[in-house]
């Protein structure tokens, strides 16, 4: 009887320990299955729950990493960045460190936080022997967004040399990159100050500088008409009419036109750089 009791106690103890460890795994499996079925919000909650109730470092990394993936897929990049920032990097091995930083710089880039993305890439470069493939791409895109075309060109060439294996294909890629980043193909950005100053001296020329010929011509004629009206009326001794209907209206259209030119130059720059960056992203992803 004594032996039977001992047998039961050992059995219960082992089963209890086993069931507790299995419970954690089952919840992780539940979170993973929610993730794979596309229920990212619920999966993120389950990962947070595991983090809250668990003490082990391994589950910390796994859950935070997967939770960040959930937010990334929900396009909530700010929360994805915050989640990744919670991972204690001092405890992680080099492979995990690289994975975290790789995801973090991608999320910063997607969150339009370019300076932070570059900072993470610099940290990663110091720690890892070579940057992961995805991070190299992100670095090129970030440099493009920051309009550092020359640096981006160099990095893009290095990327092509490293990852295009076939010699012929490599040569073609390098040539294509040279042509994409050639002076002729680079977005011709307009100087905002220059556009404003041109409109200051001759109304409408700022629009011509920004490539809006019809608008520039109309503005020139419109302002010119009021200037002429003002002068004509004053010469005809209609002083009040000349001053008010001519120069008064001209003053309004003249200052409004300068503000419009400034806005136009910014808009043109944005369209051109976005178009250029998109062509680079498309080509780099096809390599």
């Amino acid at each position, binding site marked *: 009887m004594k032996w039977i009791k001992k047998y039961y106690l050992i059995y219960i103890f082992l*089963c209890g320990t086993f*069931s507790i460890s299995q*419970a954690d795994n089952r919840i992780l499996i539940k979170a993973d299955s929610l993730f794979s079925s596309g229920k990212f*919000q619920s999966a993120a909650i389950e990962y947070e729950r595991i983090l*809250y109730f668990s003490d082990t470092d391994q589950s910390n990394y796994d859950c935070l990493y997967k939770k960040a993936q959930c937010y990334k897929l929900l396009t909530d990049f700010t929360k994805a960045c915050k989640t990744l920032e919670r991972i204690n990097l001092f405890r992680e091995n080099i492979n995990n460190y690289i994975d975290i930083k790789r995801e973090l710089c991608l999320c910063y880039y997607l969150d339009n936080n370019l300076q932070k993305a570059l900072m993470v890439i610099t940290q990663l470069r110091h720690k890892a022997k070579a940057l992961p493939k995805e991070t190299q791409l992100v670095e090129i895109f970030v440099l493009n967004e920051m309009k550092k075309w020359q640096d981006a060109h160099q990095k893009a060439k290095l990327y092509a040399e490293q990852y295009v294996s076939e010699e012929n294909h490599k040569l073609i890629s390098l040539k294509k990159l040279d042509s994409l980043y050639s002076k002729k193909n680079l977005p011709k950005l307009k100087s905002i100050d220059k556009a404003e100053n041109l409109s200051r001296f001759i109304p409408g020329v700022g629009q011509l500088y920004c490539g809006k010929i019809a608008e520039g011509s109309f503005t020139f004629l419109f302002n010119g008409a009021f200037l002429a009206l003002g002068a004509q009326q004053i010469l005809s001794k*209609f002083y*009040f*009419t000349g001053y*008010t*209907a001519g120069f008064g209206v001209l003053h309004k259209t003249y200052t409004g036109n300068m503000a419009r030119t400034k806005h136009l130059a910014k808009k043109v720059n944005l369209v051109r750089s976005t178009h250029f960056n998109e062509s680079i992203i498309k080509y780099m992803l096809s390599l």
Partner: protein
Amino acid sequence: MKRTFILIILCVLSLNISAQYSIKQRFEFVHHLIKSNDFKEALIELDYLEGKTTSDSLYYLKGWSLYSLKQLTNSADNFKKVSRTSTFYHKSHFFAAYSYVHTRNYKDAKRILNQIELTPQTRQLQDFESSGIALLERDFDLYETVSLKSKHILPALQTEVINLTKLHASLKNRKPKKMWLAGLMSAIVPGSGKMYAGKTGEGIASLLMVGSTGLVTWENHRKLGVKNFKTILFGSIFTIFYVGNIYGSVFSVKISNEEFNHEMDQKILFNLHIPLRNIFN
């Protein structure tokens, strides 16, 4: 053999039981989510608990999450479900009243405040909140009746009571500007109606605009006669500006009054909110 079989069944059951979290653990987790400002996630978790428990914590936490997400009507609906036995009772009901005040539902706010079971400490807070509502409704007599006048005002209320008294004085002493007077003033001297409404810059601009078009019309009328096209054109422009300015002055008084009232309401709401946070947080 039979006992071993029962033990195996118990162990399999224990696997399922330990894989599920208790209601208490779930509430702890919701607290954690709220502390981390993950209010949307907290609401999802609370929705799961909705059918499983009718605990006061459920309504309090739901109300608080919704309040933090600025969904004030839903927040108040949950807050007021918290029962008297709960430790969150006073906080919930005062915040429910405040949520209704913020959505301009003063009737429900007053009803909730009147139904709160009071302690000596919360009685002052109730009077203070009621006086704030009276000010928001511009019921000055009621304000004077319910406002705190005793010398022993709670420290958490002292500054805000002074602020409400100042706001009451500004509201009471301000004479609302008359729309017809602004219109009349602008008809006599263009732009003066806008200056009367407190928009001096706009008034000067209007005066210059109407004055200059008037001068142009007068000049053309004097030199070319009343039937000339230029006189008719500038005369029409002058008339449009002149009438438009009178119309604008009337509306600028209306806008000015609304701006003043809005500013005062925001200040009152701010002062009603501060003691709630100081006392209950």
